């Protein structure tokens, strides 16, 4: 089994306050052809971790320390030009908020075509056919290629981003909550599409989600983040069925059941803090 990505004690902080770690010395590895799901608290650093791998952290943030090894190359040592060659081609990302990464003044067909032209040199009819084909794979009629982002529904925008991300058949796909705006039937179609790519291209996925149903369906391994740290990681069976850390246990206890009979009960943070102090002691 070969390793595709290894993150080693990665820390991220605001440039103005380097001591305030938003991501605190996290480490994990992803194997070729496998899916790792990152789950955890809202605000725990999942998206920042993903953006760091893409080399897309905002200027106000700083990679304080750590290595991101991808195909035996440390990405943190690359310059912008080198990173641009990898991004979109070998590593692609589906961003959490589509409107922040789609350009409002360009048609969606143009935006899906851009990486195909830049990285693969596709032009003319071949390009058109490929764009139409990608749109159809994500369940959007090909004729919508002429639409602009604000003429699409929330879920359609999300699917345009998915089409863009898989256009160049990357070896690593980073997906940040890629199906949050999709109903279950479309979600099932998208997950099936990603699974096919995974098999056909031996693609690996880093998949951020809050939906434990999705985790159970697609993950090989799971990483659990809490307050900027990884508190637990392991195989999907280990983490979902035999969680060790109190946060993971508490989080799983909040998962709604399909019948909606289980009462809603958020995590009791006083209890959790006490448990954590117990662990630390």
């Amino acid at each position, binding site marked *: 089994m070969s390793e595709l990505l290894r993150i080693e004690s990665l820390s991220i902080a605001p440039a103005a306050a380097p001591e305030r770690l938003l991501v605190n010395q996290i480490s994990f590895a992803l194997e070729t052809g496998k899916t790792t799901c990152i*789950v955890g*608290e*809202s*605000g725990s650093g*999942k*998206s920042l971790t993903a953006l760091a791998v893409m080399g897309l952290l*905002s200027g*106000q943030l700083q990679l304080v320390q750590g290595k991101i090894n991808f195909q035996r190359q440390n990405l943190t040592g690359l310059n912008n030009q080198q990173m641009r060659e990898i991004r979109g081609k070998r590593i692609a990302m589906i961003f*959490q*908020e589509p*409107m*922040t990464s789609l350009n409002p003044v360009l*048609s969606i067909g143009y935006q899906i075509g851009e990486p195909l032209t830049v990285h693969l040199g596709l032009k003319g009819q071949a390009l058109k056919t490929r764009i139409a084909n990608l749109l159809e794979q994500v369940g959007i009629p090909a*004729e*919508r*290629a*002429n*639409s602009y982002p604000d*003429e699409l*529904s*929330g*879920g*359609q925008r999300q*699917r345009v981003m998915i089409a863009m991300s898989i256009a160049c058949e990357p070896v690593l796909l980073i997906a*940040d*909550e890629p199906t*949050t*705006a*999709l*109903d*279950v*039937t*479309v*979600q*099932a179609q998208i997950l099936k599409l990603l699974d096919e790519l995974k098999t056909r291209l031996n693609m690996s996925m880093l998949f951020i989600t*809050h*939906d*434990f*149903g*999705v*985790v*159970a*369906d697609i993950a090989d391994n799971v990483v659990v983040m809490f307050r900027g740290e990884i508190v637990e990681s392991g195989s999907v069976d280990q983490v*979902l*069925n035999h969680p060790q850390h109190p946060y993971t*246990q*508490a*989080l*799983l*206890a*909040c*998962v*709604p*059941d*399909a*019948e*909606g009979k289980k009462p*809603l009960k*958020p*995590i009791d943070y006083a209890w959790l803090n006490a448990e954590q102090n117990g662990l630390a002691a």
Partner: protein
Amino acid sequence: MSAYILSAQHLNKSYIQRSGRFGFTTKQVKALDDVSIQLRAGATLAVVGESGSGKSTLARCLLQLQPLNSGAVQFQGRDLAVLSAAELRQQRRHLQMIFQDPFASLNPRMKIGAIVGEGLLIHKLGNALEQRQKVVQMLKRVCLSEADMEKYPHEFSGGQRQRIGIARALVLEPKVVVCDEPVSALDVSIQAQILLLLKELQQEMALSYLFISHDLRVVRHIADEVVVMHQGKVVEQGLVADIYANPTQAYTRNLINAIPGRQRAANPS
């Protein structure tokens, strides 16, 4: 007065879409096709349906954020279309919306305190100190903190931004809140917290919700009644419990059966 706080009859809305090989031709697409709904005072009506079925369009049209082709909307028995601009602005306080795309709906140049407090300022609800207290309280109820008031939208995570949108709508103590996928970006604990908050506020002030969600587990928890949309039409409606037990439409049955991990869901004990 009727038992319905918000009702809509025969709503129609079409969009012009570019089509054809080069996008030179256009065609009309019906996003709302003769849609009628009724929201009971103090109740929650869920709207579910496939991506692109017209849910967000319905939400925007109900709140007059987008013009209709035809149809009428009444809030507390009054037709919204006949209100003057000033009257409509006044009613806005009572008709709030939580938007599907939080980032796009937050002004990037305003601090969170100002964003959440803006409505209180516009509608002159309380003095500056009271307004600040209300904002702080509401931020805490959505698991954010007083210190967050001084930050800008880009300094937050996706789920935190979604909660800012929730706080902004709820701080006004409105009568109707149209929630467009309000908990989709939240971890399951905060999701539970927000759903409980919505229920609490409903009890405290008889709030009514139109709740758009694709997550049927969430709908089951929050809603009394549900409307199922498909290609711009309402294809099924009724009590949540009835529709879950006896979906009459194949589409609704698919939705219920496709809940992910239904067979393999984690079952920690």
